[in-house]
């Protein structure tokens, strides 16, 4: 059985089926969409069970067919541990979002079925982008993915949806085009070095580029990923897009789509351009730290709930990049785990906030108060999601955040210490939001806020379970992530600094890697 | 008289045509400027044909004349149609299409 191809096609077929349903069969469209997404999830779980964490192969479930021979492009799919967990993230979130966003598209003047068809289409693209092991194919999915999201925001979003959708698309395309330029450059380098141009990832990692070329090409890729992720200062599209999108779209946007950026840095920037990655590391670390603090401070200053959540993500993305460019196994495994944990916790936060906002009809923090009193379950879920967002120990996000910090600390102690202040700010923005919206006397207008319905609880509960389960027992994820990260480290040519007695670590300089400086 | 003289003359004629196109408003005159450019080319062709001692230049000149004639047919048709509509042969008049 060709796992990845099936996985790619299943939601795509689902999208077509949903799109072909009659316009008035709204419930059926939703059910079919849910069915396809659940089937995809089942398939992903089955595949994950077949995944061999101990394997020495860089990629598993590999399938490859020549696609555009003239450009050396093949339709090659395959997963390593990093890709696997991200695919799983997407596969979990889509059914959750469909169920949680059951009525999100009902009040739009565009057909409801379209929303769900787009969502499935997006899922196919997301699986493709993580499963691609051909750089060109990756780029194709990277760009195509924008289109369903663009329509999801633009057709089904809030009042300023078209502004937000256009901003999202243009900024992302702009970033992507620079990647395209680098991609072509890479191809030309390959052409010169091995005679025939190719986009095969593993072949490309073997290239010997001179430093200047590497740095130029790295910048193209990194810019695209930085815009996508988004890193400070390329982040301004995200608050608009996430605010105007329906909560479900926002979840997929921030939870999965943006992960492609950080995934790309880890999977492509580092192994393809090892020297350049290390060359730019100091700058990127600084950017990440600014992002962490900046995002958190801006989240504190927001008056719009969704915007606030969006800014928290900017802070979180800072952590993820920090971990990736710390160039330690803890940092990179932590970042990978952070990607999925952030997916779950932000999803929970957006969805519960969405439930709340759909009841009261306002996005402003100041319109809420005392919701705890009238809708305790909603408030409870909101609190759990918030606590996950602030990386409460015991929840999965803590494991990843701590790994990122400790992984950074061994190399860049000062950076790690500054980044750690982010946890204080996180407590501030989460709890202050909770305090303002959920506690205190019931604000006028909030008296009629109903508590969560059964469907909503069913939708969000898996996230809560995952957040807690992975916090207590992250081994299933870490076991598959670690080997992939180790391979990345080997590709970059870095090793974990040795720690412990006699390692000569210093708060100002960090620990020196074994064999460094030779 | 060397070939150069002919070429210089031809260049002058061509320039007259090329610049005339910019300065004249009447469509017919503008068109005649274009014809002047073509004829300047013909002069150059013929002069070069003599210089090189082959016939290709002369043949080209003939073809240019034929083509110029065809252009006149088409051009005049268009100009006349416009004149009938607008009662003016100014090339500046039809400027609805812009920006």
């Amino acid at each position, binding site marked *: 059985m060709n796992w990845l191809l099936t996985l790619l096609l299943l939601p795509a077929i689902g999208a077509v089926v949903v799109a072909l349903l009659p316009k008035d069969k709204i419930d059926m469209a939703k059910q079919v969409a849910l069915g396809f997404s659940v089937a995809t999830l089942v398939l992903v779980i089955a595949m994950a069970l077949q995944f061999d964490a101990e394997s020495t192969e860089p990629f598993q479930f590999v399938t490859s067919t020549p*696609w*555009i*021979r*003239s450009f050396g492009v093949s339709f090659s799919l395959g997963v390593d541990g990093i890709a696997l967990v991200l695919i799983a993230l997407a596969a979990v979130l889509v059914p959750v979002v469909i169920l949680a966003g059951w009525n999100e598209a009902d009040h739009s*003047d*565009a057909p409801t079925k379209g929303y769900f068809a787009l969502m499935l289409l997006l899922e196919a693209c997301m699986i493709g982008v993580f499963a691609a092991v051909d750089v060109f194919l990756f780029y*194709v999915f990277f*760009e*195509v993915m924008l289109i369903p999201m663009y*329509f999801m925001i*633009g057709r089904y979003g809030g009042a300023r949806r*078209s502004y937000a959708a*256009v901003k999202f698309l*243009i900024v992302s*395309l*702009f970033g992507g*085009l620079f990647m*395209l*330029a680098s991609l*072509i*450059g890479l*191809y*030309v380098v390959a052409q010169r070095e091995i005679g025939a*141009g190719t986009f095969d990832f593993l072949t490309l990692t073997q290239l010997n580029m001179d430093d200047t070329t590497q740095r130029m090409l790295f910048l193209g890729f990194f810019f695209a990923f930085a815009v996508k992720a988004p890193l400070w200062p390329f982040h301004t599209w995200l608050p608009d897009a996430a605010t105007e999108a329906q909560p479900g779209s926002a979840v997929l946007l921030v939870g999965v789509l943006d992960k492609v950026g950080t995934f790309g840095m880890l999977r492509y920037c580092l192994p393809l351009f090892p020297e350049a990655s290390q060359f730019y590391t100091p700058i990127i670390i600084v950017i990440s730290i600014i992002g962490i603090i900046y995002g958190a401070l801006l989240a504190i200053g927001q008056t719009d709930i969704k915007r606030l959540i969006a800014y928290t993500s900017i802070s979180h993305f800072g952590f993820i990049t920090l971990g990736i460019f710390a160039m330690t196994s803890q940092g990179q495994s932590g970042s990978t785990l952070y990607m999925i944990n952030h997916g779950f916790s932000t999803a929970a936060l957006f969805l519960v906030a969405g439930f709340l906002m759909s009841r009261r009809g306002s996005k402003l923090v100041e319109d809420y108060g005392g919701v705890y009193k009238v809708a305790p379950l909603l408030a409870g879920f909101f609190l759990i999601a918030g606590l996950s967002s602030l990386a409460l120990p015991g929840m999965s996000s803590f494991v990843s955040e701590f790994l990122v910090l400790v992984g950074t600390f061994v190399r860049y102690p000062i950076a790690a210490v500054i980044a750690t202040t982010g946890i204080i700010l996180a407590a501030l923005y989460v709890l202050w939001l909770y305090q303002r919206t959920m506690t205190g006397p019931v604000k006028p207008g909030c008296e009629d806020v109903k508590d969560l319905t059964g469907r909503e609880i069913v939708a969000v509960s898996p996230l809560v379970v995952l957040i807690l389960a992975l916090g207590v027992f992250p081994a299933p994820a870490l076991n598959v992530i670690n080997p992939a990260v180790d391979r990345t480290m080997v590709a970059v040519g870095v090793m974990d600094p040795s720690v412990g007695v006699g390692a000569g670590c210093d708060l100002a300089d960090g620990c020196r890697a074994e064999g460094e400086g030779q | 008289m060397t070939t150069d003289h002919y*070429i210089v003359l*031809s260049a002058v004629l*061509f320039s007259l*045509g090329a610049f005339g196109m910019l300065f004249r408003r009447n*469509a017919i005159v503008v*068109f005649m400027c*274009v014809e002047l*450019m*073509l004829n*300047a*080319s*013909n002069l150059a062709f013929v002069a*070069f044909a003599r*210089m*090189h*001692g*082959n016939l*290709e*230049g002369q*043949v*080209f000149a003939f*073809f240019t004349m034929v*083509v110029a004639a*065809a*252009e006149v047919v*088409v*051009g005049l*048709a*268009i*100009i006349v*149609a*416009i004149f009938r*509509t607008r009662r003016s042969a100014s090339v500046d008049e*039809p400027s*609805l*299409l812009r920006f």
Partner: protein
Amino acid sequence: MNGVVETFASPEIRYGLVAPLLIVLGGGVLGVLLEAFLPRGSRRTAQLVLVGVVLVAAFVAVVRLAGTNDLAAEGTIAVDGPALFMQGSILLVAMVSALLMAERQVDPAGDAFAPQASALPGSADEKAFTQRGWLQTEIWPLFLFSVGGMMMFTSANDLLTMFVALEVMSLPLYLMAGMARRRRLLSQEAAMKYFLLGAYSSGFFVFGAAMLYGFSGTITFPGIVESMAADPGNNGLLIAATGLLFVALLFKVGAVPFHQWTPDVYQGAPTPATAFMAAGVKIAAVGALLRLSYVALGGLRWDWRPLMWAVAIATMLVGAIVALTQTDIKRMLAYSAIANAGFMLIGVLATNQAGLSGTMFYLLAYGFSTLGAFAIVTLVRDPAGEATKLSQWAGLGKTSPLIAGAMAILLLAFAGIPLTSGFTSKFAVFQAGIAGGATPVVIVGVIASAIAAFFYVRVIVLMFFTERAEDAPAVVVPSSLTAVAIGVTVAVTVILGVLPQSVLDLADKASTFIR
């Protein structure tokens, strides 16, 4: 006159090799005869049959010639890979254009062309003609001549043939541009501008040809190459010739700063004609440009590449930036055509085989996409005719999701989104550009693509995300002609994006000029 040839050897035409040209041009002549001798009532049918047969037959002839690499008609016509590929492309877009031109269901008054171009706009005559249901059938011979000219343009192997082909291609188009049934003032204006500026550019071409002839003593490309090889020195004639010839060809291509006719003509001409010239002329002109610059002036590439850099950069940027603020869809598509011409020039200035094949692929892909876009423009109508104001397109996606969806796919292709032909083409030329050492131009190309994406996206926003306007036009249900045309173009756009390999192979194989 001392070198006069004394004996006259009968020229060897090699009819088999020029069969496609002969079929099309012969069809044109036959079409004129049909106009002359057939009664008005049966002309349309006869012409349509003729055009159909001619185009198909010519295409078959082109296919049969595939793989040929030879000269015909005493070396004046090159029958090589690029020529055949582009002739085939021209015939294909001509077929689709013919479908659009034959459409008479979208406009209640008839087809897109004035019943009598000579009738005064708004006159009693015109009304009478309209009421009688007269249809313009003279466009068909014109169309065939133009197609023949285009085909010849791409295969001309000497300056004279190239010039004649240029005129055979252009003159019918000048006329067709002025024959719109509605908005005739605009149409006539377009015709006049096109004609005057086209003739002006022809002047440059002929003078450039004269200079080149003066330099090399011959007008055949092999002869020119030879003389250039013999005399690599500084020569004013050569520089003048190169500049002047490029002016003419870049004019036809629609490159900045020779582009200004494009928006006006595209907007004013009857839309099916616009579609035809947007697709066909682009292929023919770029084809000729490729042959001239690669074959005849190949030895001078270090001289003309810098100017091509400048032109390409200016073309991409101006096209993309000016399109941003357009309010008329046809004009916007015209600026998009300019920007795309700039992208194609990257393939030209790459001066490598990848550049040649990439450009040829681009031409074919772009030809179909642009045809499709203009075809859709013909369907969006209000009582005054086509509703080309962009603001009128608001909310189209809600009333006609199918048409709007098709348009969206085409626009995404123009924007270069992967899985559309636009992406494959851009990739092909960008790749050739970088391989050819033109990285800066490619980077500008990337930026221009980003800017360009903005206005394509803007149309999508209008169609899908905006409330329907008060004076919203209706989407007319077309006859199967336009429907097929749109279907084919959208399908080609998608197929060349998803599975482009076979066409790329074809372009690759065809990418060697005979020298």
